[in-house]
């Protein structure tokens, strides 16, 4: 089951540590690199009930943390999530829902990502869930906030449907506090309640003219109308006040709905702007103008309608409590902007009045106070709360994380077990990679995005970004540096021969005076050179570890249909081939038994001999084209090792020509001619000239 304990940053890759739901990013990225997309999807889906949503709009703290980011650019983790989750292989999601229900009824108030995630996990635990949703449709801000050009509604609907299919009951159009009283829930038999009502109340600007003129609109209601297809009236010249995602999305919607000029008015500078950097860039690309360091003073009107906005410039002062530098007005900098519509997007607070007498709320923004950030217990037994309603406007993945934590707590609560006390993980300051290591690491360009041209975007609400193609996705996944999947030394076996120190292309292993070897598990990139050369097999890596390769050789041979001649093929995953290339290779050459590896570096003479020992008639090793090899400096060693294997084969009475080694073609997995040649040689060996 999902375990919510913070993970140790000294043992887990930074991408995982940074993810609020501890997604095993490295695992699914690796599965994509291995062209096993279905497995990649399963890896994501087992933790995340909304992978297609997250693949599109997650703020991806994992990417900010990714080690590759220190070398060139981080892995496009979110785009890869979308690739794995959008593809046809995902199929219908089947979860293991227990046949027998526990009989406990749980009410989830609010159907945003927090509520959905809790409902999902609780259903899988066998509880009976009802979601109460005030609005006529499910999804919270996913449906009513985020516009379709970033998150198409059918995607949201499909993911929600899969959750409902677990047997979750829904009551839409039921606002707790109005249609049903909060206290009535327990009378109706709900043993526990999860309050995930989000933050939907726009804060007032608090300036003159705000309540006087037609054309002053709150961002939440504007976006809600847009998302419900109500085509709300828009102005021609609009100012959006605020700096969060709500402001940026309002501005981008306005452009799509016929506004001619849209200004975002933000009181601090771009560095402090809370909206995702990518979104800000997209908005500017589409034509949104941003007035930084500017505050509104007054809304002016004519004939009852908005006509202009009076503004003032700011400069940045000292950092405030949130760490952001607070704006200070510049005297005499007032100016006006002609506008006919003003959208207020300066932050939202939860509409929590209906629980005000039961739960503790924060003073100013009326957020629900929870007693433990992990358990999400409130001041009322059996009532748990999470998501934006607790944190204020945050992110989808934080809301999902809250839902998952709530599910754990509620489950324990229903079973009468004590809730764990979880300490937040100690913040680990990981050392930066050394400049020498950064220098030695080969750069590969990030391929994270395929977007509609700006002029096509504004025609409607079509999704702006396309899913990555298989080619791009595998290429991107292959950029992963495999943090913490690398070399581990068995100190009992090590004889301090120093081979690893000498052979590592990145200079990772070091020795002390007594020959004790240290390998930094974060810095190591799991190339496998040391594993192979260590004369006493004191090192292994977790990525394609040695015994796994040996086992795979055995397995492919034992599973083979005895097609003649039997050839074991080692294929480098770094090549430019697709899953279909592997499939057609299997079809065209049923006698070739593929073993996929991250680099031919991983194949030892022992493995080649092992193949022959187990009955192979030939072995082919296909390495990636040089331009895709992350460790091209090792290619020569690999060639020499294979030459050694050939000599050995000759000596022991097997024609060395039965061992073929080649680079893969520019595209595809292997040249047919080469394979045909090898088959030919095996079938009709050139006889030594007769005596």
């Amino acid at each position: 089951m999902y375990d919510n304990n913070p993970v140790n940053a000294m043992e887990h890759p930074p991408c995982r540590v940074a993810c609020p739901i501890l997604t095993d990013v490295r695992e699914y990225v690796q599965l994509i690199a291995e062209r096993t997309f279905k497995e990649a999807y399963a890896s994501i889906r087992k933790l995340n009930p909304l992978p297609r949503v997250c693949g599109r709009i997650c703020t991806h703290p994992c990417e900010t943390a990714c080690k590759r980011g220190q070398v060139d650019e981080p892995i496009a983790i979110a785009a890869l999530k979308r690739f794995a989750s959008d593809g046809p292989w995902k199929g219908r999601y089947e979860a293991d829902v227990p046949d027998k229900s526990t009989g406990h009824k749980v009410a989830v108030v609010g159907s945003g990502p927090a509520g959905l995630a809790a409902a999902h996990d609780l259903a899988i635990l066998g509880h009976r869930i009802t979601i109460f949703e005030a609005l006529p449709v499910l999804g919270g801000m996913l449906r009513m906030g985020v516009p379709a050009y970033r998150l198409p509604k059918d995607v949201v609907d499909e993911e929600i449907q899969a959750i409902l299919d677990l047997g979750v009951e829904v009551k839409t159009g039921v606002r707790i506090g109005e249609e049903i009283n909060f206290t009535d829930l327990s009378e109706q038999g709900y043993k526990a309640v999860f309050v995930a009502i989000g933050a939907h109340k726009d804060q007032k600007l608090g300036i003159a003219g705000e309540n006087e003129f037609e054309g002053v609109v709150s961002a939440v209601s504007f976006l809600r109308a847009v998302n419900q297809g109500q085509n709300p009236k828009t102005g021609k010249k609009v100012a959006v006040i605020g700096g969060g995602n709500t402001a940026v999305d309002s501005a981008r919607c306005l452009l799509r709905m016929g506004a001619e000029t849209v200004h975002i008015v933000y009181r601090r500078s771009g560095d402090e702007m809370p909206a995702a950097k990518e979104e800000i860039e997209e908005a500017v690309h589409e034509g949104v103008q941003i007035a930084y360091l500017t505050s509104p003073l007054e809304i002016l009107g004519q004939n009852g309608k908005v006509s202009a906005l009076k503004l003032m410039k700011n400069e940045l002062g000292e950092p405030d409590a949130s760490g952001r530098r607070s704006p200070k007005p510049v005297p005499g900098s007032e100016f006006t902007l002609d506008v006919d519509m003003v959208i207020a997007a300066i932050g939202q607070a939860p509409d929590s009045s209906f629980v005000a007498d039961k739960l503790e709320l924060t003073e100013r923004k009326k957020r629900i106070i929870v007693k433990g950030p992990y358990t999400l217990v409130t001041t009322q037994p059996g009532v748990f709360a999470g998501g934006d309603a607790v944190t204020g406007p945050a992110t989808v993945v934080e809301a999902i994380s809250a839902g998952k934590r709530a599910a754990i707590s509620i489950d324990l609560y229903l079973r009468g077990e004590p809730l764990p006390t979880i300490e937040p993980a100690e913040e680990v300051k990981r050392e930066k990679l050394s400049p020498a290591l950064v220098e030695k690491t080969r750069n590969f360009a990030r391929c994270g995005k395929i977007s509609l041209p700006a002029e096509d975007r504004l025609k409607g609400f079509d999704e702006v970004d396309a899913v990555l193609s298989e080619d791009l996705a595998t290429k991107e996944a292959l950029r992963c540096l495999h943090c913490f999947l690398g070399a581990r030394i068995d100190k009992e076996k090590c004889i301090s021969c120093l081979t690893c120190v000498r052979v590592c292309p990145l200079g990772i292993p070091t020795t002390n005076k007594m020959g004790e070897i240290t390998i930094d598990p974060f810095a190591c990139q799991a190339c496998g050179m040391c594993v192979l050369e260590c004369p006493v097999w004191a090192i292994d890596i977790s990525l394609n570890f040695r015994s796994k390769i040996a086992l795979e050789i055995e397995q492919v041979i034992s599973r083979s249909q005895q097609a003649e001649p039997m050839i074991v093929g080692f294929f480098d995953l770094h090549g430019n081939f697709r899953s279909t290339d592997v499939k057609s290779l299997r079809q065209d050459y049923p006698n070739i038994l593929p073993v996929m590896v991250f680099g031919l570096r991983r194949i030892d003479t022992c493995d080649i001999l092992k193949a022959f020992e187990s009955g192979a008639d030939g072995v082919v090793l296909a390495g990636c084209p040089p331009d895709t090899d992350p460790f091209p400096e090792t290619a020569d060693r690999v060639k020499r090792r294979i030459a050694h294997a050939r000599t050995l084969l000759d000596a022991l009475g097997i024609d060395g020509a039965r061992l073929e080694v080649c680079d893969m073609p520019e595209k595809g997995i292997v040249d047919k001619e080469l394979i045909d040649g090898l088959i030919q040689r095996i079938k009709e060996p050139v006889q030594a000239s007769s005596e």
Partner: protein
Amino acid sequence: MITLEQKNFEEIEKMTKGYNRLLVLGCETCAAMSFAGGQRQVAELASAIRVARKTSGEQGEVLEEAIARQCEPEFVDLIKDDVAGCDAVLSLACGAGVQLLAERFPDKVILPGCNTLFLGVTEELGVWSERCAGCGNCILDKTAGLCPIARCAKQLLNGPCGGSMNGKCEISKDVDCVWQLIIDRLDRLNRLEMLEEIFPVKDWSPAGHGGPRKMIREDLKL
């Protein structure tokens, strides 16, 4: 360290022929560091023998084992059961190891899988060179730290000989004349006057010329 290399496969195949159950035994010190007898080389060689036997139709099982050092009786004794269960042991240690095995297992066929080469240093990965001949009476203090016994083809003590040409030994253009190196180094150290001291005739008995050597430390002996 002692450097050694695996014998070529044909020779190994010939000497192991007919021993049905063959134990390939590695030595995980010098032999491993020479890439001749560590676990990985044991596995490679054992696998090669199996493939060769399969190809030639010869029967039998090839087993793999390795110990820390074959020159220590305690380590050797740890594998006595494995040895008992086989027809012959192919040792991937130096000659010392092979002989200790033969001594500890008097009734077993013990075969050398390696050629023992020299006492030397690692120049870089995959390159070793001889430095010491184990002469039993070190003179490096007088020769600027370079050994003419191990590194001069004629073992001259008052060299160089007339065959020294452009810093190279007359036996091969690839071999440095160690006496040239000695002179260069003494020059660098400003000790050229040391060359005026003439070495007396060397006593070769500590070098083994007085018969097989043995060392006994009374203070340590049990």
